[in-house]
């Protein structure tokens, strides 16, 4: 029989144990809440969430499992008429350079587009007469831009340096611009007999790994669809009809996102050149790799060196879908993706397109259309234009180009606001990954509506005019404020005379 003392101290040990557990439990609970908040905050700030540039050679950036969503035909590429191939004049840079040549030849632009000397450009503006006014505006806006841009160097010095560095890199001569007929030029790096692959599946598996090793974040392979090859346009050939070289069988499409923080601080602090440079280098490396194995390779890379339209091929290769602002949207990085490709005669296994319900998201979202500084993105509820037989949202190329020439970037090229404000442009931290996995799997659309309600009510978006530079009615607003390493007042001896207008950091 235990005597009272034993029962006594047993009771005390029991009660003290009980108290310890009770208080310990409370303390642990509060510690968990603190840890949850801290871990959450740090994960939000974690640079590892920045997908891109082949962070891990195993291509972990391509974390979205596409098998469950593969379809035979991309839902956002709805064919409504007979598909026509794109004309030379449909490509904006072709028009711009042709106008430059005519102006240097002494032609004086006027409000009447029928006076344009180059027939191919005239044909385009015959289809879209209203857009000629925008192109005209881009001339005068560019002059106003050049007269005002230097005044803001104090504010944007670091941003321009960052963009200038990659721009110089982009203009390096690798991969070299083709100079001869494709049948010769595409084989210039082939020294020996082509090595046979065990099977197209093996070839595709290897090529994808190599794309990741060359620094790409996303890669897809598909048959080269002739519908998206430009007519009368072949680099290295002054004259070209509409025939397609026989050895152009498959196309390897890959891409990499722009650096996240500058992109979120579009327009003034952002640049496409960092992603352009990396994508171009990767296309050169891939072309050389295929050449070493004895296969033809025709690199298509950013800046202005294409024979094909990239987004549709990327959609066919299952990288993503088409959106309201007309560029490719991927599940991993949203529209924050810059594409490059290599066309080859190597037999490869093709990827299938995917359907991630993005169509419905774009229909009810419209945030990019509201934020677009030049109002070039359609605000219709459904795709409201048919371009070369395919239904898509109307997009005013020339209006967008006009704001490129107004924007506060030194070369006056690029805007990227629609990419920055898109709800899909999210880094890979746990909360966005969770949402991106849940949304396509929910047939009822409840998650989508909840997300959009939160997006419209809880997030701050500067209005379209305020993205403009000061000389055209804005205050250099941006979706996020610029990152610390781009704020010139932190590093340079400059006097901060400006205010940042963008999402505040919450504290």
């Amino acid at each position: 029989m235990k005597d009272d003392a034993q029962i006594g101290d047993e009771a005390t040990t029991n009660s003290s144990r009980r108290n310890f557990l009770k208080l310990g439990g409370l303390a642990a609970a509060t510690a968990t809440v603190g840890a949850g908040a801290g871990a959450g905050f740090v994960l939000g700030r974690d640079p590892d969430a920045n997908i891109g540039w082949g962070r891990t050679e195993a291509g972990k950036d391509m974390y979205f499992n596409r098998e469950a969503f593969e379809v035979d035909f991309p839902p956002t590429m709805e064919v409504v008429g007979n598909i026509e191939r794109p004309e030379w004049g449909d490509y904006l840079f072709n028009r711009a350079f042709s106008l430059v040549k005519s102006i240097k030849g002494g032609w004086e632009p006027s409000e009447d587009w029928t006076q344009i000397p180059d027939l191919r450009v005239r044909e385009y503006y015959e289809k879209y007469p209203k857009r000629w006014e925008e192109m005209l505006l881009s001339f005068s806006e560019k002059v106003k831009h050049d007269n005002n841009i230097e005044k803001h160097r104090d504010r944007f010095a670091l941003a321009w340096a960052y963009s200038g560095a990659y721009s110089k890199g982009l203009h390096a001569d690798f991969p070299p611009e083709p100079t001869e007929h494709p049948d010769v030029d595409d084989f210039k790096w082939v020294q020996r007999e082509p090595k046979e692959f065990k099977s197209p599946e093996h070839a595709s598996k290897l090529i994808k790994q190599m794309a990741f090793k060359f620094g790409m974040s996303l890669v897809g392979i598909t048959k080269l669809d002739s519908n998206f090859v430009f007519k009368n346009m072949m680099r290295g050939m002054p004259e070209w009809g509409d025939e397609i070289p026989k050895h152009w069988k498959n196309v390897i499409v890959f891409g990499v996102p722009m650096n996240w923080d500058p992109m979120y601080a579009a327009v003034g602090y952002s640049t496409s050149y960092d992603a352009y440079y990396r994508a171009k280098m990767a296309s050169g490396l891939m072309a050389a790799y295929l050449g070493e194995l004895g296969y033809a390779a025709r690199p298509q890379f950013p800046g202005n060196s294409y024979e094909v339209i990239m987004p549709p091929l990327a959609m066919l290769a299952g990288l993503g879908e088409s959106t309201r602002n007309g560029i490719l949207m991927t599940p991993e990085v949203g529209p924050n993706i810059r594409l490059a490709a290599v066309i080859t005669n190597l037999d490869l296994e093709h990827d299938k397109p995917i359907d991630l319900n993005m169509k419905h998201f774009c229909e009810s979202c419209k945030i990019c259309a509201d934020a677009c500084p030049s109002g070039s993105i359609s605000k219709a509820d459904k795709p409201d234009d048919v371009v070369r037989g395919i239904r898509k949202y109307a997009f005013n190329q020339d209006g967008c180009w006009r704001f490129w020439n107004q924007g506060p970037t030194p070369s006056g090229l690029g805007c990227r606001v629609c990419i920055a404000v898109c709800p899909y442009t999210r880094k890979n931290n746990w909360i966005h990954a969770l949402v991106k996995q849940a949304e396509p799997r929910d047939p009822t659309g409840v998650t989508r509506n909840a997300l959009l309600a939160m997006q419209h009510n809880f997030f701050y978006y500067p209005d379209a005019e305020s993205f403009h530079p000061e000389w055209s009615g804005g205050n250099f607003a941006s979706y996020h404020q610029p990152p610390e390493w781009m704020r010139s007042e932190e590093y340079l001896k400059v006097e901060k005379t400006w205010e940042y207008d963008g999402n505040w950091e919450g504290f």
Partner: protein
Amino acid sequence: MRKKLLFIFYIVSAVFVCVHLGLRVNHLTQLEASNTPLFVATYSEHSTSSKVPVNDAINYKEWAEKFEEQTK
């Protein structure tokens, strides 16, 4: 203990209410001082800047040179 809680609630909500009212007052005074409309929506064919500026002031040749050099 609940009394203390209600006391804290009282003070905190009073602070938020005063901050809210303070902001409303300075918002209204600013609005009045600036004497500009609350909100203006202007029609533009399809770009935010509605007026098409007269083009003759531009020296196109210079523009062409600068454009080519910047994008080369």
